[in-house]
């Protein structure tokens, strides 16, 4: 069994400049999330996951990175509201010799539980509400008030979607009020750990990990 705990950054040279007019280019937050998953690989393996799902997978680089690390022991699913992102996500998987199955949907509509590993790098930028979901690229970063309008729609569904031993990873910006986010999930019986934080210029990003209270 493979116990290596480093994740090689997936290849994504198949993504064209034209694609990047429509999907989120792998960026600091994507790599931070991959670093956090890398850091947490032992925990993830210990829950013996069968289904891993990334919400809003964009380029597919994150779910692909997880798939290369965990190997062919799981079914890897990805959702994206943008059909092109779905296609590219699957191509990224293929380019890195893993199988990622994409579903074109809004957040997790249409996906049956249980999911063992849930991952979300949401559109977290604070913007006017009107900018949320206004176009392909706006979908990828516009988070509305407090940058929370999109992620707040996922939170009420996490408990039902996750398996009893399941784990949820979320990328947040300091402006998203991580403490408030933790409180919202705590109401559903989840405890929160800040796995990793990174400050890049004016942005302070964190990856939060949520697991059910025992």
């Amino acid at each position, binding site marked *: 069994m493979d116990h290596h705990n480093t994740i090689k950054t997936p290849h994504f040279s198949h993504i064209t400049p034209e694609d990047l007019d429509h999907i989120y280019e792998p960026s600091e937050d994507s790599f931070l999330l991959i670093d956090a998953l890398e850091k947490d690989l032992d925990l993830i393996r210990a829950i013996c996951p*069968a289904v891993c799902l990334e919400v809003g997978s964009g380029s597919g680089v994150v779910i692909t990175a997880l798939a290369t690390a965990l190997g062919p022991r799981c079914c890897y699913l990805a959702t994206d509201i943008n059909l092109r992102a779905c296609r590219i996500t699957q191509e990224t998987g293929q380019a890195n010799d893993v199988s990622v199955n994409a579903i074109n949907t809004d957040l997790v509509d249409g996906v049956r539980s249980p999911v063992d590993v849930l991952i979300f790098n949401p559109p977290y930028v604070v913007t006017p509400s009107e900018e949320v979901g206004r176009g392909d690229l706006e979908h990828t970063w516009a988070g509305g008030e407090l940058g929370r309008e999109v992620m707040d729609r996922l939170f009420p569904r996490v408990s039902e979607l996750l398996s009893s031993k399941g784990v949820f990873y979320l990328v947040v910006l300091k402006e998203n009020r991580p403490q408030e986010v933790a409180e919202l999930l705590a109401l559903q019986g989840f405890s929160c750990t800040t796995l990793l934080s990174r400050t890049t210029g004016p942005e302070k990003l964190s990856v939060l990990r949520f697991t059910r209270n025992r």
Partner: protein
Amino acid sequence: MKLMTHNMLTSKGMKNVKEGFPLKIQAEEMRNVDIDYDRDFITRMIPKLDWKALVFAAQCVGHKEDLPDTLPEGYENDNELLKRLHHVLLEVEVVSGCLECPETQRKFPISNGIPNMLLNEDEV
């Protein structure tokens, strides 16, 4: 869309839908792909799948003869069955067509192998 993915899709988020599972597959274009057989993966996934829904899906796409109606005891040791399961789960893909809600008959299109589960505002 692989049949393994179909096993994880539902129309339950729609208004007035109780179960929304399994969705009926109406395939227009299908294709077969070659995926390396990984026995461990198949035996790990079986308990996570809804067997009846899988058989139903296989029936929809013309692969019913490959699978028994119920999962037999000792399936972990039946290499022939595991190989057929591998084929049906991972190697048979629906390229285009649709998924139909069993309760409302609402159709969810599949294009380029990707199912579209997006709902309209009035359906949520």
